[in-house]
């Protein structure tokens, strides 16, 4: 165990890092030890005033530590030139801080220009990054920040931070100032980008749900940046280390856990509910429904997309033949795709009269259904697995 750890030096290591502001009794950050493994997103989360931002800003030395040491890729960077250190770390803040007098392309080119890249290399990189964050270069590269929406500006902020391909990114509530819908989209996009680029990311947030969603590991901080728990989201949710952590996680732990699993990870029932095509008659539907012994059946459209849930009473209401099946029953509000979290699926179930969620594949075609029992079973399994892991870690610790 110990030899393996020594061989793979963490990307960032903080050693007894402390910030004590003059005139204040308690240190803002009190001797934090932290190792951030390469290629992972580590989230610093905690109540306001716990010192999470101070901790983050000591990593790129926007705040100079009072004592302790910072290691980047094994190198002690506590006293190197801070400007040079910062060019090795991308930095994204909530207010983004784009330069309003420069175009989007100029903004993104900031660090590459400082590093002395030639024009061609800078231009190619700007194009590549704009593509990566989903902005068409031809359309956006010569715009000014004020000509972009908040979500677009935030994408540019991320692109600018990644411009010189730094191994490390520091992000301080990067999506905090956007509306919930934009925030979710930005989060998903960023996770997709991270799957490819595998940067080492330290990410500050006060939102535990964001932490669970974005983090490979989460550091829960108490006052003075004392680590209350540092573990994977699964482990923290199934096994909170202390009352403080439990309180911070809040009441909906069970629901939060559902954010950890995706529909594709659990069993999707394919034959629980009868389906019927758009060309069928009401009479045929009634027969199927009676055979199945279920309360509803699912009407698919001509592209096999779930269209309506139909109960027997809906068929009666049609009265007479030929009835319009496409008008019967209740419309399927939203389908969950296989990448959705179980939490999303649960929401969909609660909206549906019969308590199941229709699952679709990538093309939107019907793939099966998910019901409450499946979700409860998944939770049970998660909890058992986490307890297993916890006890085996404990056992390893003893030997």
């Amino acid at each position, binding site marked *: 165990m110990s030899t393996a750890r020594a061989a793979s030096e963490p990307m960032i290591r903080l050693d007894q890092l402390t910030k004590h502001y003059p005139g204040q009794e308690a240190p803002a950050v009190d001797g934090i030890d932290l190792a951030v493994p390469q290629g992972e997103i580590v989230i610093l989360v905690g109540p306001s005033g716990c010192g999470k931002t101070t901790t983050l800003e000591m990593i790129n030395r926007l705040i100079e530590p009072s004592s302790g040491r910072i290691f980047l890729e094994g190198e002690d960077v506590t006293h190197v030139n801070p400007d040079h250190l910062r060019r090795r770390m991308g930095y994204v803040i909530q207010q983004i801080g784009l330069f309003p007098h420069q*175009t989007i392309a100029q903004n993104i080119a900031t*660090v590459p220009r400082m590093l002395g890249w030639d024009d061609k290399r800078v231009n190619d990189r700007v194009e590549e990054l704009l593509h990566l964050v989903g902005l068409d270069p031809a359309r956006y590269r010569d715009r000014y920040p004020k000509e972009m929406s908040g979500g677009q500006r935030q994408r540019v*902020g991320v692109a600018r931070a990644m411009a010189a391909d730094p191994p490390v990114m520091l992000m301080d509530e990067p999506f905090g100032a956007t509306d919930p819908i934009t925030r979710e989209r930005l989060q998903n996009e960023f996770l997709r980008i991270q799957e490819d680029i595998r940067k080492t990311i330290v990410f500050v947030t006060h939102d535990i749900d964001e932490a669970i969603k974005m983090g490979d590991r989460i550091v829960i901080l108490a006052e003075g940046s004392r680590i209350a728990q540092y573990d994977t989201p699964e482990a923290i949710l199934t096994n909170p280390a202390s009352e403080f952590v439990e309180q911070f996680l809040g009441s909906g732990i069970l629901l939060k856990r559902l954010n950890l699993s995706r529909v594709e990870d659990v069993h999707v029932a394919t034959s629980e509910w009868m389906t019927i095509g758009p060309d069928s008659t009401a009479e045929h539907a009634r027969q199927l429904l009676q055979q199945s012994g279920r309360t509803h059946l699912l009407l698919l459209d001509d592209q096999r997309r779930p269209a309506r849930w139909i109960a027997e009473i809906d068929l009666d209401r049609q009265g007479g033949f030929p009835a319009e099946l496409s008008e019967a029953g209740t419309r399927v509000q939203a389908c969950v795709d296989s990448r959705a979290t179980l939490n999303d699926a649960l929401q969909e179930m609660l909206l549906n009269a019969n308590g199941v969620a229709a699952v679709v594949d990538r093309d939107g075609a019907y793939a099966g259904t998910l019901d409450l029992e499946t979700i409860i079973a998944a939770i049970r399994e998660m909890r058992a697995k986490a307890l297993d892991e916890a006890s085996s870690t404990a056992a390893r610790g003893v030997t």
Partner: protein
Amino acid sequence: MTVSSYLERRWDVVLGLTLEHLLAVGIAVGFATLIGIALAILSYRNDRAVAVLLVVINTLFTVPALAYFGALILIVGLGWTAAITVLAIYALLPIVRNTVTGLREVDPAIVRAATGMGMSKSQRLLRVELPLAYPVILSGLRVATVLIVGIAAIGAYVAGPGLGTLIFSGLGAIGSVRAMPEIIIGTVAIVLVALVLDAVLALLGRLTTPRGLR
């Protein structure tokens, strides 16, 4: 003698004095800009330095021009030097105040982002803070210019350059036929110079402000 007949006979003198006036204002604003921006850059990061600087420059601004002339004649004698020095002192206030304000009002998030990307202090100043403060600095320059076009008239008192010469000449010859035309032409020309310079600087601002800041 009417204004028009005076102009007809002595247009070359009026034109020469107008050009002198422009030149004196230009030189004074030039010096004041160099000194004022330098002082602002040296002090803007420090609250106390800014407070001291503004108190000093405000005080200099309140001293009457005649007092300066009196003192300066003893040091540099009569002529252009005394006039331009006084004009530059008055031009300092708007320039320093606007430069300090412009630099200090740059969005702190932008400064933090620039620092976080590894810009040194001087890179930050040259590439971010000064460009963002530029419209405010330029409007300070505009105020200073218009302000000293008027004050420059008094420069003639110490044998300085410009249209003041015409006015003083008229005032000294009250009762003669050329008195009124000289006073009127001198005054109107000064107003015109001020309006033209104001318009030119406004246009300059429009043309040189980056699209993203407009």
